[in-house]
């Protein structure tokens, strides 16, 4: 017969259980000596790739691998809080656009001393653009795991149905041809082109026209200069005047990928990182080089890297962190990444693993190698989030036809110039801190 439990005993037991749960919860963490690393992951397919990475790390290093996977939208905030609280992993993934932001604030350590002291590590096996994207102020802060230029996806089925000859697989078409083609392919619920109404996509056109968001010294905005204005106007005209793009329903949820996948859009501007998603499309498609402007076909090249937080202690901890970083960016690991179709690997020796479909996927590496068309590393500042926020406020309104391009840029330029000056201050402070 069960003993009767008094109310007092029940409350005492509940209290003890709560305390026990709290203590257990607080003490949970990775085992000492584990290879901890942080990465964004927003789908089951991505998670599978990182689990395979984790197994590979355990095989290579003989220690427990503990990846912390976070959905990409919440990854930067979580990383920030972990870096500040000293609970960050030994190695953390960073998008290339944020490397100057973190490096300038001392959140991650330079890797040059580790690279120099390690004769086994061959930095030359990484694409030069990946190395550039992983550096800040003359120092290497990350080792790339993927790098790729923006390309133009096209719906082969749609073009063939309209009797339009397929575009060249290697020769970038001029902007004027692209515009004509987009207009020709628009009508009856069908659209010629789709891209995101944001600076991330706009910048490829600006680079192709010979412009940039800021000057070489990054102390002044150059969006108001003729090349940049011409490029922005060209894209806005596709949206507002020619109406060759699907109507924008919401600036937040607008997705060029979902527009393209529906099968009624002829061309989509995007990176090879979307190949894995476009493979779900129920039509025939391929990729071609980005259309060429006055400066040629030089779209944005972006990439991501692994880096070591500044909080990692010298000695055994740093030694493990460096070994882990090397393993995560090794040819073997990047082969796993490329074979899964996630993106083009940052290492030349892993390039062959990123294979068709689509048939013409090989142009990604040829563009990076400078054999066809070209690319332009995504130039960013140490306050790129702020620059992006500012551009994200007023530029999308031009896509809606609410504001003219010249008015929007005229309003943005003084505020961008302030941000550029702040960027210069941050660079100066970072240089001074470096001593």
């Amino acid at each position, binding site marked *: 017969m069960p003993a009767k439990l008094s109310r007092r005993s029940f409350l005492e037991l509940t209290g003890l259980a709560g305390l026990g749960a709290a203590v257990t919860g607080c003490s949970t963490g990775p085992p000492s000596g584990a290879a901890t690393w942080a990465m964004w992951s927003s789908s089951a397919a991505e998670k599978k790739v990182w689990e395979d990475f984790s197994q590979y790390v355990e095989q290579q290093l003989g220690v427990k691998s503990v990846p912390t996977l976070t959905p990409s939208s919440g990854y*930067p*905030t979580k990383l*920030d809080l972990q*870096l*500040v609280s000293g609970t960050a992993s030994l190695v953390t993934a960073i998008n290339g656009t944020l490397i100057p*932001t*973190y490096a300038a*604030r*001392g*959140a991650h350590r330079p890797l040059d001393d580790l690279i120099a002291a390690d004769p086994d590590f061959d930095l030359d096996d990484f694409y030069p653009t990946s190395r550039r994207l992983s550096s800040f102020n003359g120092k290497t802060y990350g080792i790339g795991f993927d790098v790729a230029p923006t390309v133009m996806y096209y719906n082969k089925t749609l073009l063939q149905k309209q009797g339009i000859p397929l575009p060249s697989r290697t020769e970038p078409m001029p902007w004027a041809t692209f515009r004509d083609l987009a207009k020709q392919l628009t009508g009856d619920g069908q659209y010629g082109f789709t891209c995101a109404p944001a600076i991330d996509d706009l910048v490829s056109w600006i680079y192709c026209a010979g412009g940039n968001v800021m000057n070489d010294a990054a102390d002044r905005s150059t969006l108001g200069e003729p090349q940049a204005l011409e490029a922005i106007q060209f894209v806005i005209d596709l949206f507002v005047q020619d109406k060759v793009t699907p*109507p*924008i*329903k*919401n*600036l*937040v*949820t607008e997705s060029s990928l979902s527009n393209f996948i529906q099968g009624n859009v002829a061309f989509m501007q995007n990176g090879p990182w979307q190949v894995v998603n476009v493979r779900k499309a129920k039509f025939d498609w391929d990729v071609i080089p980005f259309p060429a402007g006055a400066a040629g076909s030089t779209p944005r090249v972006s990439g991501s890297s692994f880096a070591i937080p*500044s909080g990692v202690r010298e000695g055994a901890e740093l030694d493990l962190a460096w070994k882990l970083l090397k393993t995560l960016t090794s040819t073997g690991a990047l082969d796993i990444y490329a074979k899964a179709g996630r993106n083009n690997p940052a290492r030349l020796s892993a390039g062959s693993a990123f294979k068709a479909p689509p048939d013409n996927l090989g142009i990604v590496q040829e563009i990076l190698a400078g054999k066809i068309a070209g690319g332009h590393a995504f130039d960013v500042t140490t*306050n790129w*989030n*702020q620059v992006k*926020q500012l551009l*994200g*406020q*007023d530029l*999308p*309104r031009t896509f*809606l036809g*609410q504001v003219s391009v010249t008015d929007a840029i005229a309003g943005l330029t003084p505020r961008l110039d302030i941000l550029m000056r702040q960027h210069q201050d941050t660079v100066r402070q970072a240089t001074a*801190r470096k001593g």
Partner: protein
Amino acid sequence: MAVDTAPPAAAAPTTNTTNSKPTPRWRNRESLTAWLFILPSLIGFLSFTAGPVIAAGVISLLDWNLFSAPTWAGLRNFARLGPDPTFWSALGNTAYFTLVSVPLTILVSLALALLLNQGLKRVAVFRSLLLLPYATITVAVAFVWIWLYIPHDGLVNAVLGWFGISGPQWLISDTWAMPALIAMSVWKSFGFGMVVFLAGLQAIPQQLYEAARVDGTSTWQSFRNITLPMLSPALFFVIVTSIIGSFQVFDQALIMTNGGPGTRTTTLVMYIYRTGFENYDQGYAAAQSLVLFGFIVLITAAQFTMQRKLVHYDN
């Protein structure tokens, strides 16, 4: 609920009260029990409310990018507020949201509470259904409303189309983005006020209405002279909590419009979040937070001052 720890006035003297010192009030068994019950909430309040408010006060006086050591800034972060157009735009948007959404929410809540209080059959079912939006996660609701507001194929514009009205481009319109957010927020939050009002209405003694009927008062007069005064404590509670909540509006604006178009729906909390966690300007974000805190304290204090005249309590 207050715990009365005072001994009864007519309690019989006990043998051990003559020579020993009286037990301090806080060591009284009932007091200790009360403190024990309060403790979890108190720890939570001190850790997650009072602590961060004090920390924000200190951080607002520093230049701190999260990762490097902070440096002293004095009042510089507060001085930056004046010439910052985005801050004033965000403050204006938040005030607009509050001024429109709070009265609307209260009107809808009160109307529905009055309707449910008419002795309808299956009132519990209606009450539960009407409370559903409040119980649903804002993020999920926001995504549903994004679909409702789609300019060409969305349900809202389809319904307007039945009446020959060409609906606006809601979430991408300079004029209509904020009203669209307000409509969604009113729909999301009226359930809370409705339940509070319903409880208040059901606590009003029926004799008052019977006496009024005998005196020949109209329905409006009964509402004006009995229902409203008797409901005023509930009304006051809902107004105070709604205003505080609306000043902190964040998630629906972030998901549905991301503050746009332009800065038309950028709210103050959204701007604080971006300043602190996207721009790594913790000192300036803390200064903005304190200004927001000051506004809420001032408005709430004004409401408490006014309630002495306008709110009718039984005692």
